[in-house]
């Protein structure tokens, strides 16, 4: 279908975006890469009166290291992240996850900030941001503030952003030699939304795990941390027996929501498969 009619404006400054949000409230939607928004407009799941195109705001583009953090501007595309040497060096989890995002033509347009602000529970960037303990940088009428990923994802497509705030960047701690990461997802076809996906991150010293984060995508209304299973892993040496115990713990811990074709039991099973696979793969 075609989208319903809307007005369109392409501001030249973030302040202008914020005043438009103040003026139009829920009648306005921010357009970044549009790869989720335009699909939902085409299907008339959403009919905003005004689209505010962020595409003219070059200040929101780019990847850099600032103040000991890797800062990725909101309008940075998935393809730019996939090909970035800085990302590969400082946040290799993202390099591993990027190829799983849809298809090339969509990665060329879709953005880091758009994905995080949209907060689809089956999307890669919210999952990775949470796994790495990242931070969202938001700007609103009262200026800029930082929101920890752990406090950011509130519910189905719901975040801690205020209605008049714009997500301007996401920041990640720089990877150090003691850090380890793993990412994988199970989907019927490459590029489809994952039935279950998982990001792991943490520290490892002489095989002993610490500060482990297990984040699941596609099982709940937000990206989901499996805190009990994280605690079970910490302080232990990752071997095959531990991976099996952790998989059992994870299956007991989570209570997955079904999707159109997969039951909670299928997802519960697959989550365990993924965790076992990633833990065993990470030892090799």
């Amino acid at each position: 279908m075609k989208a319903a009619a809307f007005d369109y404006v392409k501001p030249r400054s973030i302040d202008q975006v914020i005043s438009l949000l103040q003026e139009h409230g829920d009648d306005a939607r921010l357009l970044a890469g549009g790869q989720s928004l335009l699909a939902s407009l085409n299907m008339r799941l959403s009919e905003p009166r005004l689209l505010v195109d962020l595409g003219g705001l070059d200040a929101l583009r780019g990847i850099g290291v600032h103040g000991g953090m890797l800062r990725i501007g909101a309008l940075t595309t998935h393809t730019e992240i996939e090909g970035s040497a800085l990302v590969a060096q400082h946040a290799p989890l993202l390099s591993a996850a990027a190829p799983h995002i849809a298809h090339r033509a969509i990665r060329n347009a879709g953005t880091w900030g758009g994905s995080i602000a949209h907060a689809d529970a089956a999307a890669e960037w919210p999952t990775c941001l949470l796994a790495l303990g990242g931070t969202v940088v938001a700007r609103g009428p009262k200026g800029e503030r930082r929101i920890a990923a752990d406090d950011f994802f509130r519910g189905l497509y719901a975040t801690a952003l205020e209605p008049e705030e714009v997500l301007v960047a996401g920041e990640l701690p720089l990877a150090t030699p003691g850090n380890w990461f793993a990412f994988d997802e199970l989907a019927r076809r490459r590029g489809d939304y994952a039935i279950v996906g998982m990001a792991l991150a943490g520290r490892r010293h002489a095989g002993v795990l610490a500060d482990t984060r297990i984040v699941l995508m596609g099982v709940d209304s937000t990206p989901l941390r499996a805190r009990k299973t994280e605690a079970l892993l910490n302080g232990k040496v990752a071997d095959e027996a531990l991976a099996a115990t952790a998989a059992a713990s994870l299956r007991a811990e989570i209570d997955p929501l079904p999707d159109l074709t997969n039951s909670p039991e299928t997802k519960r099973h697959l989550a365990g498969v993924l965790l076992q696979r990633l833990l065993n793969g990470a030892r090799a």
Partner: protein
Amino acid sequence: MADLYPIRVTVNGELHQCSVSPRTHLVDFVRDTLGLKGSHLGCEHGVCGACTVELNGRTVRGCLTLAVQADGGTVNTIEGLSRAGVIRDLQDAFVQRNALQCGFCTSGMLMAAKELVEQRPDANRAEVREWISGNYCRCTGYHAIVDAICDVLQQRKAATSRTEASA
């Protein structure tokens, strides 16, 4: 009805200045306003890949891009690439390998294949399959399409090493 929005966009090397409704998709703009019917419209929500065009040098979904987003930019469609001859080898290989039947997906498939052979000249068969997984074909079963793209990867690699050897 929302106001029309003026855009300047270069399509296949030709500058167009038009006013479009903000809700107009890029693919509808090239098909209906410019009469370039080579880009096709399938699912209209970003899944099938038939509407793939190049915007500022990269493939995008023509149904998930608004014409207003192309303002100030450069668009290439299958018509422009065909005329320029830059995908002649891909088109020949598709014919050679019978990589099309009804042809509906072919222009999008060629756009994806062009970006692949340029961006991933060392891609293997599995990577080719992965790359074109965002373009649906309901006739061929993909095998012949993958064959055709792999042929061109090899041909271009051989041509590059010949050039280097003679330099």
